[in-house]
């Protein structure tokens, strides 16, 4: 099983520039909150980004065909199908 990486802030918020190196190729990346604004920059973290649907909608974010938008029930489900969860 893999890790679910949750990002809630724009990339500029994090006190390290090494985060992408801590994400394994089979991990899942979920953008919530203001992290949704940085969808373009977060693509380097994962080919298939997950976004919390209402957080992206509130911020008028346009998803690409590769992105997956999920609701809260699916968010809960993602934490259960992952080995562990990291909120950065």
């Amino acid at each position, binding site marked *: 099983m893999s890790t679910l990486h949750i990002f809630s*802030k*724009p990339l*500029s*918020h994090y006190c390290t520039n090494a985060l992408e190196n801590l994400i394994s190729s089979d991990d899942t990346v979920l953008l919530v*909150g*203001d992290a949704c*604004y940085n969808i*373009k920059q977060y693509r380097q973290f994962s080919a298939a980004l997950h976004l919390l649907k*209402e*957080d992206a*909608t*509130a*911020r*008028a974010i346009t998803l690409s065909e590769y992105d997956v938008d999920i609701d809260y029930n699916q968010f809960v489900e993602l934490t259960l199908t992952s080995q562990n969860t990291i909120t950065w």
Partner: protein
Amino acid sequence: MKNILVISQHGPFDDQHMRESLDTTLIFAAIEQNISWLLSGDAVLALKKHQKPEVLGIKNYFKTIKTLELYDVENIYVCEKSLMDFNLTKDNLIIDVKVANFEQQRLLISQQHQVVTL
């Protein structure tokens, strides 16, 4: 009358940074100082069109940004590079702003009596 500049760099929903930037800008306008507001980095996202925080149950303070004009706050500057970073142009913003390159931002700073970052 003093020249006072508020500089904002935080994202729209990052704690209360942008709302307190807006409050401070409006207050200095109300007491008739020559106020300017510079939005740079993630802060430029607060001006992006079509956002709907009501979806989240959060107050839509973006509407208050639109009232700046009513209070005669005309000196609203946006960092050109930051707009580019987020693929935004003036047409994507909810208010009319002055797009400033780095040289213009340095000039703006040099003309101030007080500068506050929020």
